[in-house]
């Protein structure tokens, strides 16, 4: 076998591997679908769960997950936006910028269970928010801060320099520039970040399992101090009963809903990113 054949063979081999890896997503989706679909009877999404989760639907769990996600983004967005604006528009020192970058990387790399434990300690015990959806949202907010920051920063840095030069030439203060040029032009970065942040918060279990959730007893939270049921923790409990086929089917059904939610949000982020980016560049 001469080297040309060898190389062709290698490239072919690599292409197979690539196809395999790409189909990994498909395989996972297929598995979740195949197992989850049977559990998706018509009322699954709108019924409450029954019999320790062995029957019924996952309506309140879905609501709980949505509440935590939305709360997280609402709290995180101002901080992410503000901090990125400060770092790109006002902060001049390179060391300062480097520190901020390192901190963001540190936050991003932190194991999420630590967010859950320390977050509960701080928000739940110290600030007395208890085990509640508020504590959960705050913890998730801290967790997705880097995710939001990255998208916003990308958008701001993609802004051509002329914009800022023009702004300065016109004598605009930094705040006016931000208000009239940067935010309107970088809108898409904010929206993209929001959707990616939502997707990330939706899938997170370890950060909230001690601080925000209950398996049963709560439908809609009625106050700031109520915990909520979530898809993730519901699945966690059901997974531990994997020998019981009904429970397992319910877990798969919930998994299908959760996975679909996360994928949907990610794809939305992409669509919005490309569409709004195009509009911004017009």
């Amino acid at each position, binding site marked *: 076998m001469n080297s040309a054949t060898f190389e062709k063979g290698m490239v072919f081999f690599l292409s197979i591997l690539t196809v395999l890896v790409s189909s990994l997503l498909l395989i996972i989706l297929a598995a979740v679908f195949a197992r989850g679909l049977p559990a998706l009877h018509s009322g699954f999404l709108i019924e409450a769960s029954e019999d320790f989760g062995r029957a019924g639907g996952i309506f309140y769990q879905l609501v709980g997950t949505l509440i935590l996600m939305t*709360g997280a983004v609402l709290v995180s967005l101002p901080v992410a936006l503000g901090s990125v604006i400060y770092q790109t528009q006002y902060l001049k020192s390179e060391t300062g910028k480097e520190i901020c970058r390192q901190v963001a990387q540190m936050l991003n790399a932190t194991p999420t269970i630590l967010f859950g434990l320390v977050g509960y300690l701080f928000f739940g015990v110290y600030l007395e928010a208890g085990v509640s959806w508020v504590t959960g949202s705050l913890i998730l907010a801290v967790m997705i801060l880097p995710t939001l920051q990255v998208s916003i920063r990308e958008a701001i840095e993609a802004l051509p320099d002329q914009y800022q030069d023009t702004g300065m030439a016109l004598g605009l203060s930094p705040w006016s520039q931000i208000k009239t040029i940067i935010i309107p032009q970088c809108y898409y970065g904010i929206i993209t970040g929001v959707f990616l942040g939502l997707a990330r918060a939706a899938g997170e279990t370890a950060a909230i399992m001690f601080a925000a959730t209950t398996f049963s007893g709560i439908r809609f939270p009625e106050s700031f101090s109520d915990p909520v049921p979530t898809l993730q923790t519901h699945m966690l409990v059901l997974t*531990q009963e994997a*020998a019981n086929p009904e429970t397992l089917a319910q877990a798969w059904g919930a998994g299908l809903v959760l996975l679909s939610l996360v994928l949907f949000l990610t794809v939305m982020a992409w669509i919005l990113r490309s569409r709004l980016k195009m509009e911004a560049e017009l």
Partner: protein
Amino acid sequence: MLRVLLFLWVAIGVNPFPASADHSPKIEIVGSTTVLPIASRAAERFEKFQRVEKFKPSHRLRILVNAGGSGVGIHSVAKGRSDLGMASRKISPSERKRFEGSHLKVHTVGVDAVACVISSEIYDAGIRDLTRQEIRDIYLGKIRNWKEVGGPDRKIVVVDKERHRGTRHVFMDFIFGNPIAKTPGTILVTGSNNEEQTKIAQSDSAIGMLSYAWVSDEVRAIGIRDKKNIVNPTREAIRKGDYPIVRNLSFITAGEPSGEVKAFLEYLKSPEGQQVVEESGYIPFT
């Protein structure tokens, strides 16, 4: 847009964590997965009752039930994180000492037995009982193969539980005379009763400890043999006191219960509540 976001944020931030006055009352119950079915069923029944009697939503009692294990239940109620702790074992001396200030009170609602369980394949192969010594040696790692006790030639998958779990305390107390015994023979550690049941069912040569109400076709209970006597964990044996590994199923409060918690406990001790205990597979506490 910025203004809207800022307003929303301030609105959430400025109104941080008030103990809301206008929501319906709730009690939080945490702990043993053995006691959990009782609490859950009672909670469901109570909710139905409130709906049928058309209680106003703001007056309906919500009962939150969560697992975690006896240790978590005791700790939780002692620290005020929950209103009721569920325990399937006695409060240990070290726990009593740690939580002296909480004045823990035990309210027993039922009786349960802990069965030594094995995978159905081993049961079908003929193992129907073991002596205390044999079980001890298995958990110590001295007996490693089922054939050493008259079973098929298969390595034993020794399944243990997390150390704070009620079921483990009671089981180890019987087998070793020490509720927190060390078991070098362990191959796998599980948490809740559900998880233990699952892992034993998934294996075909496992041994473990499980509340007898959780025994199933895949997870069979064996008798305890003492010389010629074999005691199987049946309702009769438990009621008569013949079966050696029994425990009380209790709810624990910090101090004297009052209000909704008291009402719930009284419900559980009432004939109706005791019926719930029976339906969950346990023995009423009378």
